[in-house]
């Protein structure tokens, strides 16, 4: 096209006009085409009347009306277009020459594969019964995450190298999960079931970034993806819950108990939903406002206020933290939450904007969480030295330290930024550089702890 444009300034002008108009959301490509036909007709008439090409173009554009006004008029007639639809728009699929549709097929095939794979062990005598609970708990992530990684490898068209490394990682995980001779219902087995998905999620992350895993920006994209994925997954789960409730209710009305069948297929559906949610995030990343940062904005101030009130009450009344079994886990979750709020605020922040009120809120949030956690940690450390360590306590403590380390250094970097001594990019770099630490710790707990504690 460019050669034509160079030869014909009118074509170049029309091209430019078309691309400006095409950016309006209320005006679809077919409308642009229709308006272009009009513009060309008008230009032709004007040139017959003796105007030069340039003049004719200017007059024709002027007669067509200001783009703002046209767009507003189109928006009034097609108000639905201002609401981007969650279903992949057909024209988007057309524009990609069937690429979008092909991807959709791949995704649904993978989702079905994940659901059916989950049913395979039952064919080999490992039914979903209480006796095999441990097997399913340990392997649940292995039913779907390799397929998800495969999807990203396919999508990013990564080389054979990444295939191999990912296959090795997943194979190693599968071996570890199934050859360790766990005692039935042991703590280390439960820890493996909890931590293996975390470690493998980061392996999926390697596939997601398509080999650019050293790149901070790519890692941040994976963080964004994870947050949006979580939101989509929750939404799909909510829809699924409604569907299940209706199915059960309707079959109950005709005296049939649908629960056993539904129960058998529910995990399969959830695994398929993992793939579908990932695809939706991928397909929608440029279309829909990211939700994670929005929620972050809403809840950061609220959590900060809660933490401050909590700390003030504790200081005022002189009450210590009552050390229960769950307290450490509770504080782990608090740190995860604060870290999430921090992470998604960072992911949505333009590194070049100057510091604002929200930055102070975030620092206050992180510092108050650190103080609260410090108090709890001191109490728990005393208890561990007193009663000795169990796998659970050690895992919770280690996770607390991993998170504490991140948040403490984040707070320091953030404070430097607020005092104008450092760039915001340093905070972002620190977060992305820290990601492998979570994976490493999860892998240590999943693989190291059973060995260390003799599978108890």
């Amino acid at each position, binding site marked *: 096209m460019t050669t034509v444009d160079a030869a014909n300034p009118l074509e170049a002008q029309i091209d430019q006009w078309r691309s400006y108009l095409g950016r309006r959301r209320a005006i679809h490509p*077919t*409308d642009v*085409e*229709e*308006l272009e*036909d*009009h513009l*060309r*007709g*008008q230009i032709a*008439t004007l040139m017959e009347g003796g105007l030069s090409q340039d003049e004719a173009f200017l007059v024709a554009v002027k*007669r*067509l*009306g200001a783009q703002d*006004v*046209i767009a507003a*008029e*189109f928006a*009034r*007639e*097609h108000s639905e277009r201002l609401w981007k639809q969650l279903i992949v728009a057909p024209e988007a699929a057309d524009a990609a020459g069937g690429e979008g549709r092909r991807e959709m097929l791949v995704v649904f095939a993978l989702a079905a594969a994940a659901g059916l794979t989950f049913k395979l062990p039952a064919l080999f005598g490992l039914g979903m019964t209480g006796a095999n609970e441990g097997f399913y708990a340990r392997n649940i992530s292995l039913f779907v995450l390799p397929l998800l990684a495969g999807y990203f490898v396919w999508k990013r068209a990564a080389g054979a190298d990444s295939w191999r490394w990912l296959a090795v990682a997943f194979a190693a995980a599968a071996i570890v999960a199934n050859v360790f001779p766990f005692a039935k219902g042991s703590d280390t087995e439960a820890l493996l079931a909890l931590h293996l998905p975390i470690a493998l999620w980061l392996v999926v992350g390697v596939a997601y970034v398509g080999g650019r895993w050293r790149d901070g920006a790519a890692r941040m994209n994976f963080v964004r993806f994870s947050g949006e994925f979580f939101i989509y997954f929750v939404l799909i789960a909510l829809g699924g819950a409604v569907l299940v409730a209706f199915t059960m209710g309707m079959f109950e009305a005709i005296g049939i108990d649908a629960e056993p069948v539904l129960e058998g297929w529910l995990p399969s559906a959830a695994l398929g939903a993992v793939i579908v949610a990932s695809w939706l995030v991928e397909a929608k990343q440029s279309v829909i406002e990211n939700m994670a940062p929005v929620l972050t904005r809403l809840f950061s101030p609220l959590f900060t206020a809660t933490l401050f009130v909590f700390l003030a009450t504790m200081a005022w009344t002189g009450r210590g933290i009552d050390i229960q079994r769950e307290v450490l886990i509770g504080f782990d979750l608090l740190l995860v939450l604060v870290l999430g709020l921090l992470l998604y605020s960072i992911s949505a922040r333009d590194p070049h904007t100057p510091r604002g009120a929200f930055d102070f809120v975030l620092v206050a949030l992180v510092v108050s969480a650190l103080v609260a956690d410090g108090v709890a940690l001191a109490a728990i450390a005393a208890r561990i030295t007193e009663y000795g360590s169990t796998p659970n306590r050690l895992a919770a403590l280690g996770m607390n330290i991993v998170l504490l380390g991140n948040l403490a250094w984040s707070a320091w970097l953030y404070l430097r930024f607020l005092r104008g001594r450092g760039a915001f990019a340093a905070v972002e770099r620190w977060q992305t550089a820290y990601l492998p630490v979570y994976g490493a710790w999860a892998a240590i707990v999943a693989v190291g702890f059973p060995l260390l504690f003799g599978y108890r």
Partner: protein
Amino acid sequence: MDIGKDLVAASATPLVLAIVAEADTYGYAILKRVGELSGGRLQWTDGMLYPVLHRLERQGHIEGYWGSSDTGRRRKYYRITERGLAELKEQRAQWQAVDAALRSIWHAASLPGGWAPLGSLSPG
């Protein structure tokens, strides 16, 4: 003489319907036809025609289809539907009623030279 915005907007529907009813046609040709019919006194902002066409299409009064122009470019043509013809008839009756009412008052007031009395209100 410029015709007011509201009047232009109100007359757009019957005009477009009637022009499409004459023969299948496309946006720019409709606009040219409006210019011919009104002797150039009915001035539309060109871009405003298309939302009107799309509204009529959504309401089922006209149907759009893609054809090609003489130069081979893709061009969207419109044809009138059964509902469109019915709507045109209805519109026509309404406008004739308005027209008849206006004619009567012009006649009854028998204002010489159109708006002369208004002019005489402001001496000088």
